[in-house]
């Protein structure tokens, strides 16, 4: 009986160690996901580059607002010019809102996205990062360390119209500016806002 309890306890500890989401200041969890055109994209293949992860769901009203009137308009394109790699990740489970590849392909076209959208139907990568919302942003520095996790900006309507404190702050822009200036990211965590990630289970 005691042995069984110890085994269960050990299993629980192992499970919680695996399930612990990514932490700012620690190494970003590696992943390999398929892009919409079926190619494998591996995070560690971008070693030496700054990477931005954007949790994505084209059916989510907040994502729509962010890409049409909010802080995600052309933000990826702007930073691509300085060598930043931008990856959108859809962790929606099969049959969930915005999870169908065709919906993502349509969004890429409509919003003129030039960065890849990666599919994570099992939700394993989303859970490894603790992604709770769409959009939910993560910035990884050139050493592979997670340096920012949270909202795209401080306007929780997704439209840049209601910035807290009256001044709009794009947290990803400021994190990337800090990285470029070789200083610590000043605002490293914020509370993400938006739709819940539509995990399959």
């Amino acid at each position, binding site marked *: 009986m005691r042995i069984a309890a110890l085994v269960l306890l050990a299993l629980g500890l192992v499970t919680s160690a695996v399930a612990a989401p990514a932490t700012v200041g620690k190494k970003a969890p590696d992943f390999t996901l398929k892009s919409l055109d079926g190619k494998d994209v591996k995070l560690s293949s971008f070693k030496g580059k700054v990477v931005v992860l954007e949790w994505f769901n084209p059916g989510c*009203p*907040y994502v729509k607002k962010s890409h049409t009137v909010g802080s995600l308009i052309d933000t990826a394109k702007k930073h691509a010019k300085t060598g930043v790699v931008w990856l959108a990740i859809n962790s929606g489970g099969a049959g969930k809102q915005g999870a169908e590849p065709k919906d993502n392909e349509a969004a890429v076209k409509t919003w003129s996205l030039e960065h890849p959208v990666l599919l994570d139907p099992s939700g394993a990568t989303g859970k490894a990062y603790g992604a709770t919302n769409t959009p939910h942003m993560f910035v990884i520095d050139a050493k592979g360390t997670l340096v920012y996790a949270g909202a795209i900006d401080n306007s*929780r*309507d*997704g439209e840049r119209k*209601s910035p807290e404190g009256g001044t709009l702050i794009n947290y990803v822009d400021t994190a990337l500016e800090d990285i470029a200036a070789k200083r610590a990211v000043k605002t490293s965590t914020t509370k993400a806002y938006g739709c819940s990630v539509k995990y399959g289970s």
Partner: protein
Amino acid sequence: MAAASNTVRSLALVAFGALVAACDRGATPTPPETIAKGAPPLAEKAFYRVDAKPITPCKAGATCEAELVLTALGDYHVNDDYPTKFVADAASEVAIQGEGTFKIPAAKQGTMTVRFTPAKVGPAKLVGTFRLSVCNEEDCQIESPKITLDVTSS
């Protein structure tokens, strides 16, 4: 035999009553009691409606208040993470102060207090955009209905 039949009939009626009550709880848009019965909503979709409480008498030049009630319908609730506000429209015939004060007294209901100042005596239209959001377990909706409210000042 007759007693058994009566018992069955009573049970059936109770079950039917419970079924009706259960259906009512889920879907019927019930405006708060302070809103005039039969008054049409100022804005409505399948997942929310906006009603206005009667405006208390208001004097020209004074600061007056209008109260809008947002009711989330079906399995939706008011999104407490959204910066809900009332944005004045250029077409408004009364001056609107600020962007309203929003409170959520219950999960399915929010109240927006709009302060305004009528410039002159008589009827006028208060016009603005109610920027709101409601969510259920699966989805969030962001809506911006244009609200027009008739106000009269003395």
